[in-house]
C-alpha cells in the first residue's frame, strides 16, 4: 500500500483537487494493486484525457481511461472489472430512459415510474408480477433480443431471487448462483429453440438451427452478465467501493496458478498460450541469430589479413554453434498436476523447432511414451486429450508412484539418454510414501546434459507431507517452482 500511495502524491501536486481526481486516483491505485503496471506518466495522461471528453459519456470515459492506462490487452478484463466497481454505481449507463422503453414490448410498464438509483428498493410495476409472468416476459425479451427489457428483467430477478441482505459476508457468486437457479436458463434455451422452430416457415436446417442456438446462447450470456453486474452494483452500494474492489481482485492471466485455476481461467490460459508460444519462438530464434560472439578465431583472422597486406585489420571470431538440445519430458499426469503438465507439453511442442528432438513420457504409477501422439500434429490440444485417454499409465491403483515410474523409465529408455539430452521432470513429487528410487535420477543426471525438476506447487509446500522433492532435488541440476505462465515462460527461455 505505502509504495503505491507514494507514487500517487505527485499527481495531487500537479492538478487541482477535485472529487473526480480523487476518484481517479483511487481508481489508479486499485489498478496497480490488481497488478497492472500503470506508470506515473500514464496516470497523468489519463487525467488529461478525461478533461477532453464530456463526463456524461460513460463509454468515451471508459475508453479514454483504457487507452491511457491499459497497454496490454490481456489486462483489459481486470481493468473493466475495476472500472465497473468504481464508476458504474455513479454512472448513468444503467439508466433506463423512456426512449428505450417506447419501442420495446415493455410499453405496458412505461407509465409506471421506474426510478433509477435505488435499485434494491424500487421495482415498479414489476414487483407485482408472479414468477410465471416474469418468466414469460423474460422468454419474450430473449426471443426478441429486447435489450432494455432484459436490463429491466435482470434487475428485477436480482431483487427477487438473489436474497441480498446488507452486510452479509458472502461473495457475489453466491447471489449469482441463487438468481440463476431460480431463472432456470437451460430450459429457457430449449423453449426458445422450440419457439423458433415453430415460427420458421420451413423446417430448420442443421446450420440454421445451430445459428439460432448461438444467437440465443449469446443473449442468455448477455443476460447473465447483466445479472452479474447488477449484483455487483448492489454489493458496491452496500459495502463501498474499496472493499468491493478488494474482494473482486483477480490475478492477471499470466499470474494464474495452474493448480487452482477455475474452468474459466483455464480457458483463458489456453487462449493466451498460443500467442505466447509464437512470441517465445520468435524471441528464441532471434537470439540464436544475433547470439553472443565466440572467442577470436586466430587462423581466420590471419588468413583474412592477407588481403590487407598482412595487417590483421578485421578480427574474425568463432561463432559458437548453437546447441540444439534433445529434450526428454517425464510428466506426472495425475489429478491436480495434470493441468500443469498439459501446459508444459503444449509449450514445448509449440517451440519444438528450437530443439533437435522432443520425447515425452507420462506417468501416474506406470509410465508410457507418448511422443507418437504429439509429434507432427496440427492440433496439439486434441493430441494432449489423446494422451490423457490412451496412454497406458496406470500400473496398480492410479496413485502417483514416482519410484516405480522412474524404474520403468530407466529400464526401457534409460539407454537413450545421451550427453546432449536434457531431462525435464514435471510433478509435485508427492509419492504416496512409496519407495523413492532416487538412485535412478542420480544415474540419469550423470548421463544427461542437464536434469531439471519443475514443480507446480509453491516452494513452501515442498517436502511437506508425502512430498519428497528435497531427496530428488539433490540429483537435479535445478528444481524450479513453476506455478504460472510467467514462470513457465522464464524457465523455457533458460532451457534453450
Amino acid at each position, binding site marked *: 500500500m505505502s509504495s503505491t500511495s507514494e507514487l500517487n502524491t505527485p499527481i495531487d501536486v500537479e492538478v487541482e483537487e477535485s472529487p473526480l481526481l480523487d476518484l481517479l486516483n483511487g481508481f489508479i491505485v486499485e489498478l496497480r494493486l490488481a497488478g497492472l503496471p500503470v506508470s506515473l506518466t500514464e496516470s497523468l495522461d489519463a487525467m488529461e484525457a478525461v478533461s477532453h471528453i464530456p463526463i456524461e459519456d460513460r463509454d468515451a470515459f471508459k475508453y*479514454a481511461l483504457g487507452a491511457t492506462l491499459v497497454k496490454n*490487452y490481456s489486462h483489459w478484463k481486470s481493468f473493466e472489472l475495476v472500472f465497473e466497481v468504481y464508476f458504474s454505481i455513479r454512472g448513468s449507463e444503467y439508466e433506463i430512459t423512456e426512449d428505450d422503453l417506447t419501442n420495446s414490448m415493455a410499453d405496458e410498464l412505461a407509465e409506471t415510474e421506474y426510478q433509477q438509483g435505488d435499485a434494491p428498493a424500487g421495482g415498479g410495476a414489476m414487483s407485482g408480477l408472479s414468477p410465471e409472468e416474469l418468466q414469460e416476459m423474460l422468454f419474450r425479451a430473449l426471443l426478441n433480443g429486447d435489450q432494455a427489457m432484459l436490463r429491466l428483467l435482470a434487475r428485477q430477478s436480482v431483487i427477487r431471487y438473489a436474497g441480498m441482505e446488507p452486510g452479509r459476508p458472502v461473495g457475489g457468486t453466491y447471489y449469482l448462483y441463487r438468481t440463476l437457479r431460480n431463472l432456470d436458463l437451460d430450459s429457457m434455451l430449449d423453449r426458445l429453440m422450440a419457439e423458433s422452430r415453430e415460427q420458421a416457415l420451413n423446417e430448420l436446417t442443421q446450420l440454421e438451427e445451430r*445459428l439460432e442456438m*448461438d444467437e440465443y446462447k449469446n443473449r442468455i450470456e448477455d443476460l447473465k452478465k447483466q445479472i452479474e453486474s447488477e449484483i455487483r452494483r448492489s454489493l458496491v452500494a452496500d459495502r463501498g467501493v474499496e472493499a468491493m474492489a478488494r474482494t473482486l481482485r483477480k490475478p492477471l492471466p499470466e499470474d494464474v496458478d495452474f493448480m487452482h485455476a477455475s474452468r474459466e481461467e483455464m480457458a483463458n490460459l489456453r487462449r493466451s498460450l498460443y500467442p505466447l508460444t509464437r512470441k517465445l519462438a520468435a*524471441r528464441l530464434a532471434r537470439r540464436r541469430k544475433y547470439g553472443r560472439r565466440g572467442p577470436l578465431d586466430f587462423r581466420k583472422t590471419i588468413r583474412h589479413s592477407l588481403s590487407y597486406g598482412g595487417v590483421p585489420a578485421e578480427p574474425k571470431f568463432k561463432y559458437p554453434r548453437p546447441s540444439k538440445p534433445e529434450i526428454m519430458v517425464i510428466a506426472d499426469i495425475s489429478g491436480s498436476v495434470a493441468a500443469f503438465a498439459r501446459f508444459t507439453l503444449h509449450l514445448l511442442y509449440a517451440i519444438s523447432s528450437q530443439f533437435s528432438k522432443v520425447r515425452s513420457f507420462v506417468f501416474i504409477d506406470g509410465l508410457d511414451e507418448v511422443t507418437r501422439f504429439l509429434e507432427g500434429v*496440427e492440433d496439439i490440444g486434441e493430441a494432449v486429450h489423446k494422451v490423457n485417454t490412451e496412454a497406458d499409465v496406470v500400473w496398480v491403483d492410479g496413485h502417483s508412484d514416482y519410484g516405480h515410474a522412474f524404474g520403468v523409465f530407466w529400464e526401457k529408455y534409460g539407454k537413450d539418454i545421451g550427453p546432449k539430452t536434457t531431462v525435464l521432470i514435471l510433478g509435485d513429487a508427492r509419492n504416496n510414501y512409496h519407495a523413492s528410487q532416487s538412485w535412478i535420477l542420480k544415474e540419469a543426471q550423470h548421463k544427461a546434459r542437464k536434469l531439471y525438476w519443475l514443480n507446480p506447487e509453491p516452494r513452501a509446500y515442498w517436502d511437506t507431507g508425502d512430498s519428497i522433492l528435497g531427496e530428488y532435488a539433490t540429483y537435479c541440476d535445478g528444481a524450479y517452482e513453476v506455478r504460472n505462465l510467467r514462470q513457465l515462460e522464464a524457465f523455457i527461455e533458460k532451457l534453450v
Partner: protein
Amino acid sequence: MKDTIIQVDYRFEDVNGVRSGLSDVSYLADDGISGIVYLADRLAKPVLIEGPAGTGKTQLAKSVAEMSDARLIRLQCYEGLDESKALYEWNYKKQLLRIQAENETRDWSEIEDDLFSEDFLLSRPLLEAIRAEDPVVLLIDEVDRVEIETEALLLEILSEYQVSIPELGTVEGTQVPLVFLTSNGTRELSEALKRRCLYLYIDYPDLKREREIINAKIPGMDENLADQIARIVRSIRQLDLKKHPSVSETLDWAKTLLLLGVQKIDADVATDTVNVLLKYRSDIEKAVKEFADNPDSIEEVEEEGAA
C-alpha cells in the same frame, strides 16, 4: 513543452464527428475506435493499435488520412530497419560531387560546414512526416517486426516530434501529425514505447458491426445474406481454431457468395466455400464437421428408419 510547434487547431470537433467522418469513407468505427482517434488528436499522442490480423488496423490509419484530406506517409517496418531507412540519410554522392566541384577554390572548413547542411539531407518517412507543410498522417506499420533496439529510434519522434541529427542539431517539426503504429503482437513492445502511446485494441467486430461492414463494403449485398454471413462467421469464431476468420476474410467470403449468386447459405454452400474463410486444413475440417456432418447423418438415419 511543445510550444515551438504551431498547432493551428484541433482536427476533430467531437467523437461523433470522427465517427461520421470515418463512416463517410466507409470505415465503420465503434465507440472505442472513434473515441481514441479523437483523443489522439486532442492529446497529440500517437496511437498504438494491436489486434488480430485482418481487423482493419492499417485501414484505420488510411481511412483517417482520407477523411481528413491528409497525405499518408507509411513506414513499413521489417527486421533490419535502421535510421538511414526510417529517419534520414546524408546524400553522400551529392556531397562527393560538391567536394570535387569546389576542391581548389575554397577553404576546407567552409566546405565542411556546407556539406552537412539541409541541402544534402535525404528525408526518410519519419523526418518527412514532421517536416511536411501539408497535413499528414504517419503510419508505422507492423512495428513489432523491428528489433527492440531499433524501437528506440522512434521514441524521440513520438514524444517530442523532433529529430536530433548529430551534424546538424535538432530538427524541429513543423506540425504534430497524427501517428498510428500497428502491431500484430509477435513480441511484447518495450515499455518506453507503450508509455508514449494511446493503446487501442481492435478485436473482431460484434455481430451488428460486422453486418454493417459487409453492407458498407459490398454494394448490392442482400441484407438477409449479410446477416447470415455475419452470424455464421460469429459461430465459427466461437470454435477453438488456430486462426479465426478475419474481417477481410469475411468480406472475401461475402464477395465469393455474391459472385456465385447464392441467395441463402446452406450447409453445402458453406462447406464448398469455407476455404475462403479459413486457411488451415485442421480448421476447415473442424468447421465443416460442426456445420455439415450432423444433418447428413440425421437425414440418413431418418431415411433408413423410413425404409
